[in-house]
């Protein structure tokens, strides 16, 4: 269709996850099979069906964020803080100092959601206008006494464009800028968009990230009403079981990951270290979750990349541990690869991180290509007959081929795929 003459490489990586908050620790945990899913700390969750999660226990944004930006942390929900810090780690890893490139050639593409209000931001103002459970709100009191207690920056603390906003300010990134919000697909979509921006010449460096924290009490309560959560609370690290016969549901997580995507010659000119190349992207919708549409999207991404199934070392799947969704995903993968290509699903290690999941999960495979080893999928013990794919489990296996396909999907059939090549 069009010539993709500009090549796009990964030159920076930053991660904050329940299993490690720097690249080395994250890889070590992946390699050794450590799980970050534990009982939710902080409050009594016994009224919830969701009582376990992938939580980042030691996240200290004050210690991590650039000093000059520390005062802005108060205006950021935890999701935003995670995104901003992961982006900062990726920019640093890319060796990109301020002023090193023209700011208008530096863009941002971030996956996020509308974060939900912290209850401390609502507690005081709600007592001013609540007349008790199931009672209508006293709107006169809400306006007169409630609203004035709302923190002035309340709305901006939670908006999905705030990670990108802060990232542009911190790093003087004045190029193309977008914030994608398509749930579990958002990360892959953000990466695809950034890839196209570099390919068409709209930017030379794109900071691509994803962030979400679903551990907020309001989020947990809301999701508890509809999300297919596991009740296997006694064994948190074994609870989420991708493509497994005994899958019992999923759990939430929090995290952020970011890549620096850079035009190849631009990276080479400044002597940047290259850790992978993004070579293909596609997205689409599989109505009815048949797997046929998902397979079409995977094939489109591979056509875009100019690769065959036989070139693929492994497929990086979303694998949320819910039968209906895993079977949908497996049908899509099986249509293209059968059982010939191993499937690796990292989510069982840290829960579903939503808008962060696309980039965070893909990063596991980027590190795998770099280290020459693919970690095994945790908690896949007995294959589900509805999932006719070859899930890689157990000890890490050596990388034997140069390409990885990352796939992601939502419960409404929105799906996407990106293809990444090992840098040699």
């Amino acid at each position, binding site marked *: 269709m069009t010539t993709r003459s500009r090549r796009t490489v990964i030159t920076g990586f930053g991660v904050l996850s329940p299993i490690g908050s720097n690249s080395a620790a994250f890889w070590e945990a992946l390699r050794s099979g450590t799980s970050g899913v534990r009982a939710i700390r902080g409050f009594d969750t016994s009224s919830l069906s969701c009582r376990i999660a992938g939580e980042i226990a030691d996240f200290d944004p004050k210690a991590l964020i650039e000093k000059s930006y520390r005062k802005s942390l108060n205006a950021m929900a935890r999701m935003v803080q995670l995104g901003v810090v992961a982006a900062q780690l990726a920019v640093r890893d890319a060796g990109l100092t301020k002023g090193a490139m023209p700011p208008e050639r530096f863009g941002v593409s971030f996956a996020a*959601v509308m974060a939900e209000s912290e209850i401390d931001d609502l507690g005081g103002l709600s007592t001013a206008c609540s007349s008790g459970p199931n009672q209508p709100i006293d709107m006169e009191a809400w306006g007169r006494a409630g609203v004035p207690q709302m923190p002035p920056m309340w709305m901006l603390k939670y908006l999905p464009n705030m990670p990108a906003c802060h990232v542009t300010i911190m790093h003087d990134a004045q190029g193309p800028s977008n914030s994608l919000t398509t749930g579990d697909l958002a990360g892959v979509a953000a990466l695809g968009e950034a890839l*196209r921006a570099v390919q068409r010449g709209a930017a030379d460096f794109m900071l691509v990230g994803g962030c979400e924290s679903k551990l907020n009490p309001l989020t947990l309560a809301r999701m508890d009403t509809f999300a297919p959560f596991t009740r296997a609370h006694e064994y948190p690290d074994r609870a989420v079981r991708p493509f497994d016969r005994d899958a019992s549901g999923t759990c939430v997580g929090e995290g952020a990951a970011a890549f620096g995507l850079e035009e190849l010659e631009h990276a080479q000119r400044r002597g940047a270290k290259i850790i992978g190349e993004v070579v293909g992207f596609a997205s689409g*919708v599989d109505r009815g979750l048949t797997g046929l549409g998902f397979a079409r999207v995977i094939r489109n991404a591979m056509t875009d990349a100019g690769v065959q199934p036989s070139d693929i070392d492994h497929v990086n799947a979303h694998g949320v541990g819910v039968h209906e969704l895993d079977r949908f995903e497996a049908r899509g993968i099986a249509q293209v690869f059968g059982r010939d290509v191993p499937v690796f699903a990292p989510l069982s290690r840290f829960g579903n991180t939503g808008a962060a999941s696309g980039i965070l999960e893909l990063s596991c495979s980027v590190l795998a290509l770099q280290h020459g080893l693919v970690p095994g999928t945790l908690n896949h013990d007995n294959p589900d007959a509805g999932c006719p794919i070859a899930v890689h489990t157990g000890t890490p296996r050596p990388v034997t081929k140069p390409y990885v396909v990352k796939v992601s999907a939502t419960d409404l059939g929105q799906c996407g795929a990106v293809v990444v090549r090992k840098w040699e």
Partner: protein
Amino acid sequence: MRRRVVITGMGVVTPLGHTVAELFAAQAEGRSAVGPITRFDARALPTTFGAEVKNFDLRRYLKDADRFARSGLNTRFAIGAAKQAIENAGLLDASRGDRSRIGVYLGVGEGQDNFPALINSAAAAVTTGADRADPARFVTALLPVLDPRAEVEVEMHTTVGHLANLFALDGPNASCLTACAAGSQAIGEAVELIRAGDADAMAAGGSQSMLHPLGVAGFTRLGALSHRNDSPQTASRPFDLTRDGFVIGEGAGVVILEELEHAKVRGATIYAELTGYGSTADAYRMTDPHPSGKGAIRCIANALADARLNATDIGYINAHGTSTQANDAMETAAIKSVFGEHARTLPVSSSKSTLGHLIAAAGVVELVTAVMAIRAGVLPPTINYEMPDPACDLDYIPNAAREVSVDHVLSNSFGFGGQNVALTVSRFRE
């Protein structure tokens, strides 16, 4: 040769009308859609008015509209606008053509939180003597009063997911929320998907309603809204010296963007060509635009360059024009910087003067306005323009529409957080 992208369908759900024809007629007349908020009791708020979508009935668009009874207005409005646009483009029949080549991209807000449940549960979580709300009490109070069917619809991927499933749009699917620039950004990125060959057609635009207690309160606390409670219809007064903030609106718009040859083969009606897209970031502040408009300037320049247009080719600017002090002065400065001498005679108007600010839907509804301006040869006015501001000294088409034939229009959208988008739309010529 780059793939050309044309507009072959349009649909809107707005405070000024539920069809493109109704909308444009009201805009050309200079009719205001602003009035007291009726959606909830807002009488004790610092701002008591807005631009509401009235008499919206999803059953006009869908047989099984009840399925979406618990969806947010963001989704309901989007379905109404998308149905019109897809029907208008002749793409409703899913048995024709390759549906995997038609996608969806919207700038869209989230579904609405259950306000009474949230407030009552937060109040229950505050115990006397404690300095923090107790999360366990909050969750225990909230759980039994939430409706799962409504909560699942709050999730941000659902709107574009529903559109794909309802209208058999199996191609690329995405949503973004770059504040007030989101609708335009979705259109720009959808154009790039078509140019790159990822799709042949895209249903693109935006949808949002923040006319709920938390939304209005949030904007109030930011000091962004007009307080002209005694005269709502004159409150949105872009570029006027006495402007005091924007007027919150709601709605949706969807346009069908289509690769030119694809449109021709189908014999589709071509309304206009989407010629240019620019996206930049101010990289300045969370709330304020850069005072000299550095991001806006580059964004407009990028859109013109993308369209291969000279500044003098532009015959009309549909401004972002929010009616805030900061935006309107900055936007004026940016226009003068890009257009130089041409800015002195270049007509500029703000659709927000009549419609209010449709947030994520603003960009697409304003683009539809631009397309209609080209087709009708009528430029809609900026109403409530009474006292010139020395910092805003352009031709704002004050108070009355103007008959002028234009071939190329620029539409600006600038979001909170400094994300800027500019689009150019052009009369279609072979």
